[in-house]
Protein backbone atom coordinates (compact mmCIF):
# COMPACT_ATOMS: atom_id res chain seq x y z
CA UNK A 1 0.00 0.00 0.00
CA UNK A 2 2.96 2.35 0.42
CA UNK A 3 5.65 3.65 -1.92
CA UNK A 4 8.90 4.63 -0.21
CA UNK A 5 11.93 6.69 -1.19
CA UNK A 6 15.11 6.37 0.81
CA UNK A 7 16.88 9.20 2.57
CA UNK A 8 18.92 11.77 0.59
CA UNK A 9 21.15 14.58 1.67
CA UNK A 10 20.11 17.65 -0.33
CA UNK A 11 22.85 19.97 0.85
CA UNK A 12 21.12 21.43 3.92
CA UNK A 13 22.87 18.85 6.09
CA UNK A 14 19.50 17.42 6.99
CA UNK A 15 18.25 13.94 6.29
CA UNK A 16 15.01 13.83 4.32
CA UNK A 17 12.55 10.96 4.12
CA UNK A 18 9.32 10.85 2.17
CA UNK A 19 6.41 8.44 2.27
CA UNK A 20 3.35 8.32 0.00
CA UNK A 21 0.34 6.24 1.03
CA UNK A 22 -2.50 5.69 -1.49
CA UNK A 23 -6.07 5.42 -0.16
CA UNK A 24 -9.26 4.19 -1.89
CA UNK A 25 -10.68 7.73 -1.74
CA UNK A 26 -9.74 11.31 -0.91
CA UNK A 27 -12.11 11.20 2.06
CA UNK A 28 -10.25 8.27 3.61
CA UNK A 29 -6.86 9.91 3.03
CA UNK A 30 -8.14 12.99 4.88
CA UNK A 31 -9.49 10.88 7.73
CA UNK A 32 -6.05 9.32 8.13
CA UNK A 33 -4.42 12.75 7.96
CA UNK A 34 -6.68 14.17 10.66
CA UNK A 35 -6.10 11.17 12.93
CA UNK A 36 -2.31 11.21 12.52
CA UNK A 37 -1.50 14.93 12.61
CA UNK A 38 -2.72 16.31 15.98
CA UNK A 39 -0.09 14.75 18.29
CA UNK A 40 3.25 16.49 18.54
CA UNK A 41 6.50 14.68 17.95
CA UNK A 42 7.60 13.38 21.41
CA UNK A 43 11.15 14.58 20.75
CA UNK A 44 11.32 18.37 20.82
CA UNK A 45 14.33 19.02 18.56
CA UNK A 46 16.14 17.44 15.64
CA UNK A 47 13.08 16.20 13.76
CA UNK A 48 10.10 17.65 11.98
CA UNK A 49 7.44 16.13 9.78
CA UNK A 50 4.69 17.38 7.55
CA UNK A 51 1.54 15.56 6.50
CA UNK A 52 -0.46 16.54 3.43
CA UNK A 53 -3.16 15.04 1.25
CA UNK A 54 -3.26 15.34 -2.52
CA UNK A 55 -6.06 13.57 -4.31
CA UNK A 56 -6.37 10.27 -2.45
CA UNK A 57 -2.73 10.07 -1.40
CA UNK A 58 -1.40 10.88 2.06
CA UNK A 59 2.15 12.25 1.86
CA UNK A 60 4.55 12.53 4.77
CA UNK A 61 7.85 14.43 4.64
CA UNK A 62 10.47 14.19 7.36
CA UNK A 63 13.48 16.36 7.99
CA UNK A 64 15.96 15.21 10.64
CA UNK A 65 19.41 15.99 12.00
CA UNK A 66 20.45 12.39 12.61
CA UNK A 67 19.59 9.01 11.10
CA UNK A 68 18.84 7.52 14.49
CA UNK A 69 16.25 10.19 15.29
CA UNK A 70 14.75 9.80 11.82
CA UNK A 71 14.44 6.03 12.22
CA UNK A 72 12.60 6.31 15.52
CA UNK A 73 10.12 8.82 14.15
CA UNK A 74 9.44 6.94 10.92
CA UNK A 75 9.12 3.65 12.78
CA UNK A 76 6.66 5.16 15.21
CA UNK A 77 4.66 6.74 12.40
CA UNK A 78 4.39 3.46 10.49
CA UNK A 79 3.08 1.75 13.64
CA UNK A 80 0.49 4.49 14.06
CA UNK A 81 -0.43 4.42 10.38
CA UNK A 82 -0.99 0.68 10.46
CA UNK A 83 -3.29 1.04 13.48
CA UNK A 84 -5.31 3.70 11.66
CA UNK A 85 -5.53 1.50 8.54
CA UNK A 86 -6.62 -1.51 10.61
CA UNK A 87 -9.28 0.61 12.31
CA UNK A 88 -10.54 1.85 8.96
CA UNK A 89 -10.66 -1.68 7.65
CA UNK A 90 -12.64 -2.95 10.63
CA UNK A 91 -15.03 -0.04 11.08
CA UNK A 92 -15.13 1.59 7.64
CA UNK A 93 -16.10 2.61 5.05
CA UNK A 94 -16.86 6.16 6.23
CA UNK A 95 -20.58 7.04 6.48
CA UNK A 96 -22.02 9.23 3.77
CA UNK A 97 -21.85 12.91 4.69
Amino acid at each position, binding site marked *: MAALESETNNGTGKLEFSLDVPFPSSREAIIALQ*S*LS*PDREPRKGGISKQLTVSGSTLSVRWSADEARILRVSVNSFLDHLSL*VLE*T*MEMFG*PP*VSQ
Partner: protein
Amino acid sequence: MTVVLGFEGSANKIGVGIIRDGEVLSNPRRTYITPPGQGFLPSDTARHHRAVILTVLKEALEQAGLKPADIDCVAYTKGPGMGAPLVTVALVARTVAQLWGKPLLGVNHCIGHIEMGRLITNANNPTVLYVSGGNTQVIAYSERRYRIFGETIDIAVGNCLDRFARVIKISNDPSPGYNIEQMAKKGSQYVELPYTVKGMDVSFSGILSYIEETLFSMLVEITERAMAHCGSQEVLIVGGVGCNLRLQEMMGVMCKERGAKLFATDERFCIDNGAMIAQAGWEMFRSGQVTELEDSWITQRYRTDEVEVTWRD
Protein backbone atom coordinates in the same frame (compact mmCIF):
# COMPACT_ATOMS: atom_id res chain seq x y z
CA MET B 1 -31.28 10.17 24.91
CA THR B 2 -27.52 10.52 24.60
CA VAL B 3 -25.14 7.59 24.05
CA VAL B 4 -21.41 8.14 24.54
CA LEU B 5 -18.57 5.74 23.78
CA GLY B 6 -15.42 6.27 25.88
CA PHE B 7 -11.82 5.10 25.37
CA GLU B 8 -9.31 4.88 28.22
CA GLY B 9 -5.66 3.75 28.01
CA SER B 10 -3.43 6.22 29.87
CA ALA B 11 -1.65 3.57 31.98
CA ASN B 12 -1.61 -0.24 31.82
CA LYS B 13 -5.38 -0.70 31.51
CA ILE B 14 -7.16 -0.40 28.16
CA GLY B 15 -10.92 -0.01 28.40
CA VAL B 16 -13.82 0.93 26.13
CA GLY B 17 -17.17 1.78 27.71
CA ILE B 18 -20.61 2.89 26.56
CA ILE B 19 -22.96 5.04 28.64
CA ARG B 20 -26.56 5.95 27.82
CA ASP B 21 -28.03 8.64 30.08
CA GLY B 22 -26.37 7.38 33.24
CA GLU B 23 -26.63 3.69 32.41
CA VAL B 24 -23.46 1.68 31.83
CA LEU B 25 -24.28 -0.47 28.80
CA SER B 26 -20.85 -2.11 28.55
CA ASN B 27 -17.39 -1.62 30.04
CA PRO B 28 -14.86 -4.26 28.87
CA ARG B 29 -11.22 -3.81 29.92
CA ARG B 30 -7.83 -5.51 29.60
CA THR B 31 -4.78 -5.07 31.86
CA TYR B 32 -1.15 -5.27 30.79
CA ILE B 33 0.42 -7.32 33.58
CA THR B 34 4.22 -7.54 33.89
CA PRO B 35 6.20 -10.27 35.69
CA PRO B 36 6.88 -9.78 39.45
CA GLY B 37 9.62 -7.23 40.10
CA GLN B 38 8.91 -5.32 36.86
CA GLY B 39 6.93 -2.16 36.24
CA PHE B 40 5.36 -1.29 32.88
CA LEU B 41 7.17 0.86 30.30
CA PRO B 42 5.38 3.21 27.87
CA SER B 43 6.38 1.48 24.60
CA ASP B 44 5.49 -2.02 25.83
CA THR B 45 2.22 -0.75 27.27
CA ALA B 46 1.36 0.97 23.99
CA ARG B 47 2.12 -2.26 22.14
CA HIS B 48 -0.22 -4.16 24.45
CA HIS B 49 -3.03 -1.65 23.95
CA ARG B 50 -2.53 -1.58 20.20
CA ALA B 51 -2.88 -5.36 20.02
CA VAL B 52 -6.23 -5.50 21.81
CA ILE B 53 -7.97 -2.13 21.41
CA LEU B 54 -10.02 -2.97 18.31
CA THR B 55 -11.17 -6.25 19.88
CA VAL B 56 -12.21 -4.45 23.07
CA LEU B 57 -14.05 -1.82 21.01
CA LYS B 58 -15.97 -4.56 19.20
CA GLU B 59 -16.79 -6.19 22.54
CA ALA B 60 -18.10 -2.92 23.92
CA LEU B 61 -20.49 -2.50 21.00
CA GLU B 62 -21.58 -6.15 21.05
CA GLN B 63 -22.16 -6.26 24.81
CA ALA B 64 -24.21 -3.06 24.61
CA GLY B 65 -26.12 -4.45 21.64
CA LEU B 66 -25.42 -1.28 19.67
CA LYS B 67 -24.20 -0.29 16.22
CA PRO B 68 -21.90 2.67 15.50
CA ALA B 69 -24.91 4.62 14.20
CA ASP B 70 -26.41 4.47 17.73
CA ILE B 71 -23.44 6.35 19.24
CA ASP B 72 -23.85 10.13 19.63
CA CYS B 73 -20.32 11.07 20.67
CA VAL B 74 -16.83 9.52 20.93
CA ALA B 75 -14.88 10.40 24.08
CA TYR B 76 -11.25 9.52 24.78
CA THR B 77 -8.59 10.34 27.37
CA LYS B 78 -6.70 13.46 26.34
CA GLY B 79 -4.44 13.17 29.40
CA PRO B 80 -2.75 13.01 31.84
CA GLY B 81 -0.83 9.75 31.49
CA MET B 82 1.89 7.96 29.53
CA GLY B 83 2.48 9.41 26.06
CA ALA B 84 2.72 6.34 23.81
CA PRO B 85 -0.38 4.55 25.20
CA LEU B 86 -2.37 7.81 25.11
CA VAL B 87 -1.52 8.25 21.41
CA THR B 88 -2.50 4.66 20.55
CA VAL B 89 -5.94 5.16 22.02
CA ALA B 90 -6.44 8.67 20.61
CA LEU B 91 -5.67 7.42 17.08
CA VAL B 92 -8.49 4.89 17.21
CA ALA B 93 -10.90 7.37 18.78
CA ARG B 94 -10.20 10.03 16.14
CA THR B 95 -10.50 7.50 13.32
CA VAL B 96 -13.82 5.97 14.37
CA ALA B 97 -15.26 9.41 15.18
CA GLN B 98 -14.55 10.43 11.58
CA LEU B 99 -15.64 7.11 10.05
CA TRP B 100 -18.95 7.26 11.90
CA GLY B 101 -19.39 11.02 11.50
CA LYS B 102 -19.60 11.66 15.26
CA PRO B 103 -18.25 14.53 17.37
CA LEU B 104 -15.10 13.89 19.42
CA LEU B 105 -14.45 14.77 23.06
CA GLY B 106 -11.07 14.85 24.80
CA VAL B 107 -11.55 14.05 28.49
CA ASN B 108 -9.33 14.67 31.51
CA HIS B 109 -8.63 11.26 33.09
CA CYS B 110 -9.04 12.51 36.68
CA ILE B 111 -12.39 14.10 35.85
CA GLY B 112 -13.43 10.76 34.33
CA HIS B 113 -12.86 9.17 37.74
CA ILE B 114 -14.76 11.94 39.53
CA GLU B 115 -17.79 11.88 37.23
CA MET B 116 -18.01 8.08 37.40
CA GLY B 117 -17.82 8.22 41.19
CA ARG B 118 -20.61 10.81 41.27
CA LEU B 119 -22.77 8.77 38.90
CA ILE B 120 -22.42 5.45 40.71
CA THR B 121 -22.66 6.70 44.29
CA ASN B 122 -25.02 9.65 43.83
CA ALA B 123 -22.88 11.71 46.20
CA ASN B 124 -24.09 15.30 46.03
CA ASN B 125 -21.01 17.51 46.38
CA PRO B 126 -18.26 15.48 48.06
CA THR B 127 -14.68 16.20 48.92
CA VAL B 128 -12.88 13.81 46.54
CA LEU B 129 -9.80 11.75 47.35
CA TYR B 130 -8.34 10.61 44.03
CA VAL B 131 -5.69 7.94 44.63
CA SER B 132 -4.11 5.71 42.01
CA GLY B 133 -0.75 4.56 40.64
CA GLY B 134 -0.35 7.81 38.78
CA ASN B 135 -2.23 10.39 40.83
CA THR B 136 -2.85 11.51 44.42
CA GLN B 137 -5.06 14.55 44.85
CA VAL B 138 -7.67 15.93 47.24
CA ILE B 139 -10.25 17.74 45.13
CA ALA B 140 -13.31 19.88 45.83
CA TYR B 141 -15.67 21.46 43.33
CA SER B 142 -16.03 25.21 43.36
CA GLU B 143 -17.30 27.64 40.74
CA ARG B 144 -16.84 25.66 37.56
CA ARG B 145 -13.51 24.05 38.54
CA TYR B 146 -12.42 20.92 40.31
CA ARG B 147 -9.98 22.64 42.65
CA ILE B 148 -6.94 20.72 43.82
CA PHE B 149 -6.76 21.31 47.56
CA GLY B 150 -3.84 19.03 48.22
CA GLU B 151 -1.71 16.54 46.32
CA THR B 152 1.47 14.54 46.51
CA ILE B 153 4.56 16.68 46.29
CA ASP B 154 6.41 13.82 44.62
CA ILE B 155 5.00 10.39 43.73
CA ALA B 156 1.48 8.99 43.85
CA VAL B 157 0.56 6.73 46.76
CA GLY B 158 -0.18 3.90 44.32
CA ASN B 159 3.24 4.36 42.76
CA CYS B 160 4.79 4.01 46.22
CA LEU B 161 2.83 0.81 46.85
CA ASP B 162 3.66 -0.57 43.37
CA ARG B 163 7.37 0.10 43.83
CA PHE B 164 7.29 -1.55 47.25
CA ALA B 165 5.63 -4.59 45.64
CA ARG B 166 8.34 -4.64 42.98
CA VAL B 167 11.14 -4.61 45.56
CA ILE B 168 9.76 -7.63 47.39
CA LYS B 169 8.66 -9.24 44.09
CA ILE B 170 4.94 -9.51 44.81
CA SER B 171 2.87 -10.64 41.79
CA ASN B 172 1.36 -7.92 39.57
CA ASP B 173 -1.68 -10.13 38.86
CA PRO B 174 -4.38 -8.79 39.10
CA SER B 175 -2.55 -5.71 40.46
CA PRO B 176 0.35 -5.21 42.91
CA GLY B 177 -1.86 -3.13 45.22
CA TYR B 178 -4.46 -5.87 45.52
CA ASN B 179 -1.79 -8.40 46.51
CA ILE B 180 -0.29 -6.00 49.09
CA GLU B 181 -3.75 -5.62 50.59
CA GLN B 182 -4.24 -9.39 50.88
CA MET B 183 -0.84 -9.83 52.55
CA ALA B 184 -1.43 -6.84 54.85
CA LYS B 185 -4.64 -8.44 56.14
CA LYS B 186 -2.54 -11.25 57.61
CA GLY B 187 -0.10 -8.83 59.29
CA SER B 188 -0.19 -8.14 63.00
CA GLN B 189 2.96 -6.14 63.78
CA TYR B 190 2.80 -2.39 63.19
CA VAL B 191 6.17 -0.79 62.48
CA GLU B 192 6.56 2.89 63.28
CA LEU B 193 7.86 4.80 60.23
CA PRO B 194 8.16 8.50 59.33
CA TYR B 195 4.84 10.27 58.74
CA THR B 196 5.09 13.02 56.14
CA VAL B 197 2.12 15.34 55.93
CA LYS B 198 2.87 18.94 55.03
CA GLY B 199 -0.35 20.94 55.53
CA MET B 200 -2.61 19.96 52.63
CA ASP B 201 0.11 17.99 50.82
CA VAL B 202 1.90 14.68 51.36
CA SER B 203 5.23 13.18 50.39
CA PHE B 204 5.77 9.52 49.51
CA SER B 205 9.18 9.18 47.90
CA GLY B 206 12.07 7.71 49.86
CA ILE B 207 9.68 5.79 52.05
CA LEU B 208 9.33 2.69 49.96
CA SER B 209 9.20 0.33 52.93
CA TYR B 210 5.89 1.75 54.08
CA ILE B 211 2.96 -0.41 54.91
CA GLU B 212 -0.62 0.62 54.40
CA GLU B 213 -1.45 1.99 57.84
CA THR B 214 0.83 4.97 57.66
CA LEU B 215 0.20 5.85 54.01
CA PHE B 216 -3.54 5.67 54.43
CA SER B 217 -3.55 7.63 57.70
CA MET B 218 -1.80 10.44 55.85
CA LEU B 219 -4.48 10.41 53.16
CA VAL B 220 -7.27 10.41 55.75
CA GLU B 221 -5.70 13.41 57.47
CA ILE B 222 -5.45 15.56 54.33
CA THR B 223 -8.96 14.60 53.27
CA GLU B 224 -10.28 15.61 56.69
CA ARG B 225 -8.45 18.91 56.48
CA ALA B 226 -10.02 19.65 53.08
CA MET B 227 -13.46 18.74 54.40
CA ALA B 228 -13.05 21.10 57.32
CA HIS B 229 -11.91 23.83 54.96
CA CYS B 230 -14.93 23.37 52.68
CA GLY B 231 -17.50 22.54 55.34
CA SER B 232 -18.17 19.29 53.46
CA GLN B 233 -20.15 16.33 54.82
CA GLU B 234 -19.34 13.85 52.07
CA VAL B 235 -16.20 12.01 50.95
CA LEU B 236 -15.85 10.22 47.63
CA ILE B 237 -12.79 7.98 47.01
CA VAL B 238 -11.89 7.33 43.35
CA GLY B 239 -8.89 5.81 41.58
CA GLY B 240 -7.38 2.31 41.71
CA VAL B 241 -6.08 2.65 45.28
CA GLY B 242 -9.67 3.46 46.24
CA CYS B 243 -10.46 -0.27 45.86
CA ASN B 244 -8.47 -0.87 49.02
CA LEU B 245 -10.92 -1.85 51.76
CA ARG B 246 -8.55 -0.83 54.55
CA LEU B 247 -8.39 2.70 53.13
CA GLN B 248 -12.18 2.75 52.91
CA GLU B 249 -12.41 1.46 56.49
CA MET B 250 -10.04 4.10 57.86
CA MET B 251 -11.78 6.86 55.92
CA GLY B 252 -15.09 5.53 57.22
CA VAL B 253 -13.94 5.89 60.82
CA MET B 254 -12.99 9.53 60.25
CA CYS B 255 -16.28 10.22 58.47
CA LYS B 256 -18.30 8.64 61.27
CA GLU B 257 -16.51 10.84 63.80
CA ARG B 258 -17.51 13.90 61.79
CA GLY B 259 -21.02 12.70 60.98
CA ALA B 260 -20.10 12.65 57.31
CA LYS B 261 -20.95 10.12 54.57
CA LEU B 262 -18.36 8.02 52.74
CA PHE B 263 -18.79 7.02 49.11
CA ALA B 264 -16.69 4.57 47.12
CA THR B 265 -17.12 2.37 44.06
CA ASP B 266 -16.05 -1.23 43.41
CA GLU B 267 -13.15 -2.40 41.23
CA ARG B 268 -15.23 -2.13 38.03
CA PHE B 269 -15.22 1.66 38.31
CA CYS B 270 -12.40 2.74 40.62
CA ILE B 271 -9.82 1.04 38.40
CA ASP B 272 -9.32 2.85 35.06
CA ASN B 273 -12.13 1.97 32.63
CA GLY B 274 -13.68 3.21 29.38
CA ALA B 275 -17.13 3.96 30.81
CA MET B 276 -15.76 6.65 33.13
CA ILE B 277 -14.37 8.50 30.11
CA ALA B 278 -17.75 8.03 28.41
CA GLN B 279 -19.53 9.44 31.49
CA ALA B 280 -17.34 12.55 31.71
CA GLY B 281 -17.75 12.86 27.93
CA TRP B 282 -21.55 12.61 28.34
CA GLU B 283 -21.55 15.50 30.83
CA MET B 284 -19.23 17.61 28.66
CA PHE B 285 -21.15 16.85 25.44
CA ARG B 286 -24.53 17.66 26.98
CA SER B 287 -23.22 21.01 28.21
CA GLY B 288 -22.10 21.88 24.69
CA GLN B 289 -18.42 20.95 24.61
CA VAL B 290 -16.74 19.33 21.62
CA THR B 291 -13.07 18.76 20.69
CA GLU B 292 -11.99 19.75 17.18
CA LEU B 293 -9.65 17.25 15.54
CA GLU B 294 -6.71 19.66 15.34
CA ASP B 295 -7.05 20.28 19.12
CA SER B 296 -7.33 16.58 19.93
CA TRP B 297 -3.61 16.09 20.70
CA ILE B 298 -2.84 14.07 23.79
CA THR B 299 -0.81 15.47 26.69
CA GLN B 300 1.12 13.72 29.44
CA ARG B 301 0.43 16.56 31.87
CA TYR B 302 -3.12 17.76 32.30
CA ARG B 303 -4.15 19.18 35.65
CA THR B 304 -7.64 18.50 36.98
CA ASP B 305 -8.25 22.22 37.53
CA GLU B 306 -7.43 23.16 33.90
CA VAL B 307 -10.87 22.04 32.75
CA GLU B 308 -13.87 24.34 32.82
CA VAL B 309 -16.63 22.30 34.45
CA THR B 310 -19.47 23.65 32.32
CA TRP B 311 -21.92 20.96 33.43
CA ARG B 312 -22.13 21.98 37.10
CA ASP B 313 -23.26 25.24 38.74
